[in-house]
Structure formats: C-alpha cells, structure tokens
C-alpha cells in the first residue's frame, strides 16, 4: 500500500530569470511548464493533474491557471500553506497518482516579487480588520521579526552565536558562486554578515534571504511511467507535512514543523540520517536552516550552531545543504519550496557540474511556509536516485 518508491520526479525546470518586470506570474509558470515537460519528453496533453500556488493566486487561482494553459485536468490542487506548498504538492501529487486520480502531475510556481517591489520581510504589516490577525498586527510584527524572536530564544537557551548563523550565509554564498544563475555570487565572509545592518535583532541583512523574480516547474508521475521517459528517475521514498501554531497559548518556538514531517518522511523512506547525501532546506533566514537541521534530527536540539561550523554543510562537507546557493543567495521569489525539489532532483541526476555533490543518491528536502515564530508549516521529502 505504501507509495514509497512508486512515484517519481520525472521532469524539472528552474526559470533562469531573477528579474522579470515584463512578465506575469502565469507567463513565468507557462514558461516553466514548457521547460519541465521538455525535460522529460512529455507535452501539455499528457498533464492530467495541476498543482499550483503563488503570492497572488486566490481561491480560484488554480482554475484561472488551468484556463491560461487551456488545461482540463482531472485532478486540481491549489493548496497554499506558504513557501512549503510545492514540497507538499509533490506528496499530494504522489498520493493522487498512487490512488489513480491522475497520472501526470504538473506543479507550477511563478512570481515577480522583486520587480513588484514586494517588501516581504518588513513591509507587509497591517492585518487590517481581521480578528484572527488582531493578536499579531497591533505589535509591529514583521516576517524578519518573527524569525528573530526564534533566533533570540535559541541563542538564550543554547548559546548559539551570530557568527554561527553568519557561517550559514557565507556557505550559501560560496555555493551560489558555483551557480551561474544565482543572483548573489560575490563571496562574503562572516565579518561581512555581522557588519551588515541589523534588521531585527539578532538578524542582520545578510541573515535574510534575497528577493528575486522567478519560477519553477516539477512533473510527477508513476515510477513505472518515468522509466520510459527522457531523464534519470528520481524516486519519492518518503514524505510528511506538519503545521506548528500557538497551540492554546504556549508555543515551543524551537520545536518546528520539521520535527514531525521529517520523522514521518524518514520513517516512510526507511532511511537513516547517515544515508542522506545532501539536503535542500528552506533558508528564508539563517536561523531557519539551523533550526531545520536540528528538527530533522541531523543534530540534537541546541547543537545546530556547532553543526554548521567548519564547512559541514558546504560542498565537500559531510552534509552539503543547498548547493545552488539557496534563498540566501540564488533566488527567492516570495515562495521558494519548488526550487528545493528542483535542486534535489538535479543533484540526484548528477547534472550540477561545478556544484555537484559527488555520488549523491539520497536527498532530503524540507520546506518551511509561513512565519516560524507565529504560524508555520513544514513539508519534507526523501528523494533517491533509482
């Protein structure tokens, strides 16, 4: 009954653009669809499942997208749980394919967050006349601020330092230098991160992801069908989702959704941490990546600071994370989850040239959506080369 090993990532495509003021969201998605379908040798006619979310798609958004692509899929999923949505879409697509509800699922994302000058980190504010937001909006919470609350608590409980967080930003930038499409490629040092202006203590500008335009597409189908397609088969071995909220008043800010979704994904895949050759982890902020590593179980709670030191998460280290440069340096068009899936698949296919993780056979993907200190989701995948 398990779908582990039965479903495959058949095609992927990352839009090379980082700045696209002349494009619309749907245009970017359509260009990505073209890329991912070409990648695996399928056409729009083969697509019978459509999965999408974006910064602006509302309740009928996925239907508007179906119209734009002139698609009449037999399975629709517009799940939007924040930046992790596209990681969750992979497991939703897998379940739908496994259940016979569709056979070729197309997952799409596109955004012009940068050219629209969306101030995601510190400008969304407000909350308007929404009673559910009234316990947040009067206090000047920002996206950066919510993660900063978590970082401060981590520092208090475990003695984590700004230097350790900075190490993550430095590593992501080093990776981005090997990715010709990355937006920020100039090398930085720990001192540069610490010298960058404080946005919300203890997070500096360079602890925060960039904002870009961009998009991506992923084609999911049965492992059986994928074997007849153009590309090396990447199998879905495990998946999990979770939500963390304020419970009935006393949230544990340091136990994040990854602890639940990661444990499920690993258990389903039947692999241990030692089997994982690389991770792609949502790095909206340096603290996000650090806390995710702890909650996925790669180190104990509180040990994340020491874990990321000494090049461990860099290419050539014991556990390379985000070889593409991540959201901190490659791209972050508002919601980044789809790129985590794409980079993991490319690595497992062995097509990443200079930034290739040698012998990559198993990858763990974890997306975070929402705001870590307030309300967030997690979605995890374990992917493996067939």
């Amino acid at each position, binding site marked *: 009954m398990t779908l582990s090993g039965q479903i495959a990532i058949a095609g992927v495509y990352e839009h090379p653009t980082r700045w696209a003021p002349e494009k619309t969201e749907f245009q970017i998605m359509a260009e990505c669809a073209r890329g991912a379908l070409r990648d695996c040798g399928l056409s729009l006619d083969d697509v019978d499942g459509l999965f999408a979310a974006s910064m602006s798609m509302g309740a009928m958004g996925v239907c508007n997208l179906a119209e734009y692509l002139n698609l009449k899929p037999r399975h629709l999923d517009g799940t939007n749980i924040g930046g992790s949505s596209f990681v969750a879409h992979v497991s939703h697509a897998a379940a739908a394919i496994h259940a016979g509800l569709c056979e070729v699922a197309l997952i799409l994302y596109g955004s012009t967050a940068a050219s629209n000058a969306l101030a995601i980190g510190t*400008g969304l504010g407000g909350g308007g006349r929404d009673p559910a937001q009234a316990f947040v909006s009067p206090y000047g919470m920002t996206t950066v601020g919510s993660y900063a609350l978590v970082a401060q608590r981590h520092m208090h409980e475990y003695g984590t330092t700004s230097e350790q967080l900075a190490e993550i930003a430095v590593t992501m930038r080093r990776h981005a230098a090997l990715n010709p499409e990355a937006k920020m490629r100039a090398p930085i040092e720990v001192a540069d991160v610490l010298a960058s202006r404080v946005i919300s203590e203890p997070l500096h500008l360079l602890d925060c992801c960039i904002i870009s335009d961009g998009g991506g597409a992923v084609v999911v189908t049965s492992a059986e069908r994928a074997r007849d397609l153009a590309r090396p088969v990447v199998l879905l071995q495990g998946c999990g989702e979770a939500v963390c909220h304020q419970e009935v*008043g006393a949230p544990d800010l340091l136990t994040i959704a990854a602890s639940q979704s990661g444990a499920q994904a690993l258990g389903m895949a039947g692999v241990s941490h030692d089997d994982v050759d690389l991770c792609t982890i949502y790095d909206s902020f340096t603290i996000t990546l650090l806390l995710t590593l702890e909650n996925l179980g790669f180190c104990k709670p509180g040990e994340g600071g020491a874990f990321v030191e000494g090049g461990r998460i860099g290419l050539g280290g014991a556990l390379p994370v985000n070889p593409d440069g991540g959201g901190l340096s490659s791209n972050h068009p508002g919601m980044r989850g789809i790129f985590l899936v794409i980079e993991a698949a490319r690595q497992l296919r062995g097509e990443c040239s200079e930034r290739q993780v040698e012998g990559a056979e198993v990858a763990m993907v974890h997306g975070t959506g929402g705001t870590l200190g307030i309300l967030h989701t997690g979605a995890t995948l374990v992917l493996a080369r067939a």
Partner: protein
Amino acid sequence: MAVELQHPVPAASWETRAWWEGCGRGELVLQRCGACGKVQHKPRAVCATCLSSEIEHFVASGRGQVYTFTVTHQNQAPGFREACPYVLAYVELEEGPRLLTNVIGCDPGEVSVGMPVVVDFAPVDDEREAFAVPRFRPA
C-alpha cells in the same frame, strides 16, 4: 524610544471581544475551560482541549517575564516605521500563556530574556471601539 508605537485598533469577533474589552478596562481576561480546567489563549468559543463550550473568563495578574524578544530596526508599515527601534516580544504570563506584545518603558538595549515585566495598556479608541493594546514594561 523616540516615537511611540502607533498601534492599529484591533478587530474583534464576538469570540475575542471579551479580551479586547477587558484590555479597554485595564484587565487581561483569559479563558479557562469549565469542564477540563485548561487555560487557553487566544480566546475561542470552545475548549480546544476537550471541545466543551463551558468557557469561563478570569482576570490574569498582568505579570510575566520576557520569553523572547527582538529589537526591530526596520518595519516599513506606518505607525511602526517611525517608532523603530522598538521591542517586539513574547511575554510569558504567570498564568502560562505567552503573548505576542511589545516591551516599552525602557531602552531597547536593556531588554533581556527572563526579565520580569508588567502589563501596560495603550488605549486605542476609535469611533467604534474602546479597546486597549496590552504592552509590557519592566516590573
């Protein structure tokens, strides 16, 4: 801080009205389940532990300590932009719940995790409501 925070008037539903009206009177009104005794925040019409509708209200002490905080140096939203740097925090009340709030009444650099604080209400009346926003100051 040089400029006071300009808190927007919170929107209340009938489920959360007792909280915001309580703040308007200078009281932190928490909920306790009459069936299972669990204290819960944010307010809701049913107990999220046992689904009972026997929700009772009681006035909290208003005392707590800083659970975590951040000094916000950048927020482009009007009312907050001018007040930077200001302190956004979770305060853990003596009764258990942790509230997202602001710490005021001291230099942002003096705030620390574990610091004892006491509630301080900022009235945010408009033509519709006589609410107040609970912030905390050093005890």
